[in-house]
């Protein structure tokens, strides 16, 4: 059966200029299929987070080509990329990065309101739905700066899901969670991939988490050593 390719990376090279010219990513090429749950693993400094940021379209300084959902993203303007991210990409950062002045609910709602496909009322309902998925509905009206690390991480995941993106990317998405919550998050990801056809790409140190995903790409010194 021919799988639909949702992400294609071709010959990616990336250099850091500071403090000295250094090649972080060396000629990386791989595809990701629709509905796939992919883990990227490797030692610290192997370039896996850098790769994820390139895939996320938030870092545009690289050589090579990145294509998502059949659209070539390399060379697009900042605004086009922002619009693409808004609709098609969900993000979970390593340090949960919520807007501290806003409530958990508002944080989840903002990308939805920005997309503007649903009315504010519907976005709110959907945001509650996503928060309940992560068992965070009781904290919806709390300021995000008042939440614990683990709670913030779960709100960030809910935010990543709000626009039903085709691809969800996570930089250590379970980094701040205990085993129970890690399990919950993993199950949610697994379910999204299986039933909704959403693609998950997660950078992780968590060996259990990686082992249970569909596919593992292992990186070392800026190269993919296995899993292509």
């Amino acid at each position, binding site marked *: 059966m021919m799988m639909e390719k949702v992400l294609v990376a071709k010959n990616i090279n990336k250099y850091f200029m500071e403090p000295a010219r250094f090649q972080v990513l060396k000629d990386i090429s791989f595809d990701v299929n629709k509905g796939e749950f992919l883990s990227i693993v490797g030692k610290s400094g192997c370039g896996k987070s850098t790769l994820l940021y390139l895939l996320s379209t938030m870092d545009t300084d690289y050589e090579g080509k990145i294509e998502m959902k059949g659209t070539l993203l390399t060379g697009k303007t*900042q605004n086009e990329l922002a619009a693409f991210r808004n609709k098609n990409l969900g993000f979970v950062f390593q340090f949960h*990065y919520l*807007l501290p*002045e806003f409530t958990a609910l*508002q944080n989840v709602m*903002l990308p939805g*309101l920005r997309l503007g496909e649903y009315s*504010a009322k519907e976005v709110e309902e959907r945001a509650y739905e996503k928060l309940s998925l992560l068992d965070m509905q009781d904290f919806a009206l709390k300021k995000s700066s008042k939440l614990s690390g683990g709670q913030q991480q779960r709100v960030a995941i809910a*935010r990543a899901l709000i*626009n039903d993106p085709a691809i969800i990317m996570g930089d250590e998405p379970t980094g701040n969670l205990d085993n129970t919550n890690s399990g919950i998050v993993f199950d949610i990801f697994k379910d999204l991939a299986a039933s909704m056809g959403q693609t998950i790409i997660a950078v992780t140190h968590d060996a259990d988490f990686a082992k249970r995903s569909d596919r593992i790409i292992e990186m070392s010194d800026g190269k993919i050593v296995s899993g292509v």
Partner: protein
Amino acid sequence: MWFNRINLQIARTHLFAKKKQTAIASLGVTFGIAMFVLMISVMTGVNKLLEETQLTSTPHVRIYRDIGHERPSLLSAFNPGERNWNLVHHQKPKDEPLNLRNGLLIARSLEANPNVLGVSPQVSSQVFFNYGPAQLSGMLVGVDMEKEDRLYSVRSKVKSGSLEALMASNDGILMGKGLADKMQVKAGDKVTVTTPKGEVVLLRVIGTFQMGIGAIDNLRCYTSLQTVQKILQENTRYITDIHVKLNDLSLATPLAKEWQDRFAYRAEDWETANATILVSFTIRNIMTGVVVMTLLVVAGFGIYNIMNMTVYDKMKDIAILKATGFQGKDIVGIFISQSAFIGLIGALLGLIIGYVLSWLVSQAPFDGGEFLSIDKFPVNMDPKFYVFGLVFGILTTLLAGYFPSRKASKIDPVAILRG
């Protein structure tokens, strides 16, 4: 698209989540604008007072006979031509009267002009006041006091005696205070006056006045037209000067030119007569401009700094917003609306504080001394300063919010998230 509902909601949340920071940013604008309003009100207030003091005692147009007006010698009129050499050394006018023929008629026709506020025909004569062995020079000015008062509000300048007493007397004079002090005379004293023709007359000092200008207060004495005409042994139609005040100061130059052509007498506008004073006005106005500019530049940079900090403080939030799909123009919109709020609140508060401070200064007792008839500090509360302050405050804040937020909207979010 810049100011859609989400962006405004984010801006509002930012503003109200950190009330203290918002207040401090607004206060930065407030102080700049308040200082601007206070400074420009006080400086232009002083300038205006000085200008008014100088100009109120000056006629807008003065018509007089200019003796020594250049005219060709009779010889060259009789024997013209390029090939003839006519030598006439030191040509002098002879027996030329100093008065304006039909002076009173000219004055009456000027009064009918709608641009004219008032006309005062006068007879002025150089005289000597005998003060023991010394002779002090002075200017005896015969006027119709009612008309002169309309032009220069002499009544408010009277320091002792009264205008009515002057009008009722036929040998009374109202003496400039500087001159009176020099001669140590008071109302009721008599002074001996020597006229240019050598006559000696006795006049009574009815009172003293003070215009606030040394050149007038140390020289001039007012009396009635008839008194001077009598002293000069001239008839009652004898007029040497016509002083005119206009409704609109700026018409002086063209009208003076027109009248000079029409009446064939010298008509001098106030700008020509007061060229040196005008230069000092110009210099003072330039100084005011420089001070105000400096103040605005300093205030503007203060506002820019604060807004810059406000935006950079939110760098991480900007990166998150961009990561979740907000575009550059959204970011700019969010911070522009915050700037607009801070600018509006800050500038309005600044205007209020500026007004209160200006008002306080205008109530401060200020002794104008012998020369200025004021007891409070002069402050010019022109509404146009307030409009300017408001526009400047808001505009500067908007620009100060726009530039850093535009810069922030252009960088890759990862550059910020990585730290």
